[in-house]
């Protein structure tokens, strides 16, 4: 089967299942007795196993298979979840994630998972040494123990675990026939595994092997002693089965005994089972279709995941769309917006009523359309946030700390491209909070704080921005320590440092090559610092800031634009040049008379709502050739804001509000002072977009 076309679906779904399992594991840690959680995990593991086997990712399939075995024991109450069980399952999840990532990167998803598989098997064995094996695809469960020849002589009860027995019982009750088959291969047989395979093959045509002892894997690997025992479901008569097995050469003997409900009830000893061998097959009604026998045992197990899937599908009816297609849609749409603006200005010139009407209608339709396109690109930050509980747990554990991660606003939506990029920076910030922010348990107790530290991860909308905050209740940032380190690392001089505000000092944490960790722990000191966080956020058009109170904790705040492609802007004119100022940073516009402007230390200032704010001359700052605001009696001013700081920008003329499509200036001009990008106006001209944040010091 060509599975390539399903690959992206496989990847998406695997990730969903892995995430679900991670979440469930964390939930299970808090509520170890909740079997419902284990059920969910089991379903995820099972689905993942099936998917990966179909796609040919054998290592993933075999690992999930072992996980499934462990989970199955847990959900049946046969295994108590211990710490090492958690660790092993977490390890398995990590390994699975790595394998899925490998597939994403174009790899084959192969990985040596034998040690984890061994661990998982050991968990299964340790509790249930006699748990046998199963044939892949059948109803069987706990894989793992090489049953050995000893098991071959045991009763049916010994062969099957409770679950399998109950499945078998059900099939018997619904009129199917079950047999216990022992096969002995001649001692002089050279390739006994091959003979065994031929037996399986012959049986496969008549029904379904639901159990074999030793396991099929062991038999295939020649790890058995000329004899094996099978539990077999079939519509055929015992004699027919026997004949089929004897059709294989080099078979010493094959005994086929019907399994009765009494065998399964457990009252019978193995002797009774032997006795039953001679009796005829129980009067089971003939089955309409031979396949029904195989379908029946599979049903109870396949039913659950299928039902879960159906329920999920009903809750959110979605389709997956390639993000590239969305990007193309977005680009095409931006082109159309440019044309719309062009049409609007043409209609304004031509002044024909029906043309204006049509253009207006088109404007309304396209802004609705824009809303839809934008929404298509929006996704909740949840998809990023949901991996953090696990990460924080691991980091805290490895550092011997107790940390609660409290997530709020996970449903906050952000542009897909931003969501994709924001993960790594947040990982850094959260690790930083847990590693450097939260104190050790002893320190916390000494400081009169609860043993468990709390890290809040919040996301919320504010205006045209999304804020993401990571706040901890740890020891806070020590200004002196940071400064000392910064001076030592040559980032600032001592004099510069002394003059800095606390916040500016905290921002030194984001300078490249900076680390305050006295001891390089497992978590930090891997050569990746907060400077990477800062540059990443800034490349997304966002900002990072830090506030902190010594002894109380620190807060890292990231401000991000909602979207990266279309914004509302105020168009302004400076002589012959046009600039766009994003509406998100504008407070209001006003006209300032010459006499309202004051000079303070050579800087022009004016009164704005009972505070004195600086007036920035854009024409002077940008060396505009054909305009200067200096001589004007009345100056148009755009009041802009950066955080709580405000400034006025003196412009020549306000053109009006307009939707603009953000275009990059290109790599060659990627960092131009106070310019965040460009846009193409209706007349085809390029206008620069001001980065007002750079204008407010």
């Amino acid at each position, binding site marked *: 089967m060509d599975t390539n076309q399903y690959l992206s679906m496989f990847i998406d779904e695997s990730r969903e299942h892995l995430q679900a399992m991670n979440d469930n594991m964390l939930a299970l840690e808090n509520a170890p007795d909740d079997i419902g959680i284990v059920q969910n995990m089991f379903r995820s593991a099972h689905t993942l196993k099936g998917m990966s086997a179909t796609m040919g990712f054998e290592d993933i399939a075999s690992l999930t298979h072992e996980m499934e075995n462990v989970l199955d024991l847990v959900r049946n109450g046969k295994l108590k979840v211990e710490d090492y069980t958690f660790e092993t399952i977490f390890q398995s999840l990590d390994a699975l994630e790595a394998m899925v990532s490998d597939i994403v990167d174009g790899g084959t998803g192969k990985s040596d998972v034998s040690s984890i598989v061994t661990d998982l098997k050991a968990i299964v064995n340790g509790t249930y040494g006699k748990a046998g094996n199963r044939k892949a695809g059948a109803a069987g469960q706990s894989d793992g123990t090489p049953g050995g020849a000893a098991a071959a002589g045991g009763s049916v009860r010994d062969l099957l675990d409770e679950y399998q027995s109950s499945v078998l019982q059900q099939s018997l009750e619904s009129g199917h026939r079950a047999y216990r088959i022992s096969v002995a291969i001649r001692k002089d047989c050279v390739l006994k595994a091959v003979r065994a395979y031929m037996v399986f093959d012959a049986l496969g045509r008549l029904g379904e092997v639901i159990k074999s002892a030793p396991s099929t894997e062991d038999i295939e690997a020649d790890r058995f002693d000329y004899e094996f025992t099978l539990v077999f479901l079939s519509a055929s008569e015992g004699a027919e089965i026997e004949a089929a097995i004897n059709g294989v050469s080099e078979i010493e003997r094959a005994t086929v005994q019907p399994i009765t409900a009494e065998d399964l009830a457990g009252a019978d000893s193995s002797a009774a089972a032997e006795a039953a061998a001679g009796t005829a097959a129980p009067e089971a009604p003939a089955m309409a279709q031979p396949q029904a026998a195989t379908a029946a045992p599979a049903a109870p197990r396949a039913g659950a995941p299928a039902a879960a899937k159906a329920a999920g599908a009903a809750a959110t009816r979605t389709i997956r769309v390639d993000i590239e297609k969305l990007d193309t849609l977005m680009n095409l749409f931006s*082109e159309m917006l*440019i044309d719309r603006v062009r049409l609007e200005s043409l209609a304004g010139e031509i002044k024909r009523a029906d043309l204006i009407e049509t253009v207006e209608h088109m404007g309304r339709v396209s802004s609705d359309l824009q809303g839809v396109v934008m929404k298509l690109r929006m996704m909740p930050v949840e998809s990023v946030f949901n991996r953090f509980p696990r990460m924080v747990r691991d980091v805290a554990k490895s550092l011997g700390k107790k940390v609660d991660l409290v997530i709020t606003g996970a449903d906050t939506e952000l542009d897909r491209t931003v969501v994709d990029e924001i993960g790594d920076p947040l990982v850094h910030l959260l690790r930083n909070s847990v590693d450097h922010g939260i104190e050790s348990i002893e320190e916390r107790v000494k400081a009169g704080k609860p043993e468990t530290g709390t890290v809040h991860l919040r996301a919320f909308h504010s205006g045209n921005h999304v804020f993401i905050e990571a706040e901890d209740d740890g020891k806070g940032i020590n200004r002196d320590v940071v400064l000392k380190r910064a001076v030592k690392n040559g980032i600032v001089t001592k004099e510069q440092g002394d003059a800095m505000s606390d916040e500016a000092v905290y921002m030194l944490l984001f300078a490249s090559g900076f680390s305050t960790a006295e001891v390089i722990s497992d978590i930090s000191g891997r050569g990746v610092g907060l400077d990477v966080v800062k540059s990443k956020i800034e490349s997304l058009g966002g900002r990072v800031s830090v506030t902190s109170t010594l002894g109380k904790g620190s807060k890292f705040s990231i401000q991000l634009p909602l979207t990266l492609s279309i914004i509302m802007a105020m168009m302004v004119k400076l002589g012959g*040049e046009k600039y766009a100022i994003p509406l998100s940073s504008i407070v209001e516009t006003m006209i300032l008379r010459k006499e309202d402007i004051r000079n303070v230390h050579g800087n022009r200032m004016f009164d704005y709502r009972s505070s004195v704010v600086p007036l920035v001359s854009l024409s002077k*700052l*940008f*060396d*505009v*050739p054909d305009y200067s605001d200096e001589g004007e009696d009345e100056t148009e001013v755009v009041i802009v804001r950066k955080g709580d700081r405000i400034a006025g920008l003196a412009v020549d003329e306000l053109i009006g509000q307009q939707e603009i499509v953000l*275009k*990059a*200036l*290109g*790599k*060659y*001009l*990627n*960092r*131009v*002072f*106070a*310019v965040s990008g*460009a846009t*193409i106006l209706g007349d*085809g*001209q*390029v*206008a*620069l977009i001001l980065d007002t944040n*750079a204008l407010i010091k």
Partner: protein
Amino acid sequence: MAADTKTIVFSIGTEEYGIEVEHVKTIERMMPMTRVPKTPPFVKGVVNLRGVVVPVIHLASRFGLPENEPTENSRIVMVSVGDLEVGFIVDSANDVIDVNADRIEEPPEVVGGIRAKYLRGIAKVGENRLLVMLNLSEVLNKSEIIQLEQMED
């Protein structure tokens, strides 16, 4: 005998220059340009090249040569090197010719005032024609941009 490379020939002042055709996207007539403040003087601004904003630099000015006033013959040669896309203003775009790699010689230290690092070599074409082959990655070297970043501090 090394292979021939198709080369776009353009001129600045009296010199003729060459860029391999695979780096040249299009050759445009002069078009309205939007000045970008606080950029080096050789960055003339940005243009709208069919929906994409492309920076344009004056090649002569980039080499520290005197800038000629744009004329009817002036062209913008749109080049792309790696992920950089830039337009070069040149005095005229003349020709497309085959240049054999064997005929490219090491550049002399100074060619018409241009520093050698911008040059890949001098190609002899025909009997008496010298073509200055540009080293585009040096011409588009971002050290100038870094200087620019320092200007803002």
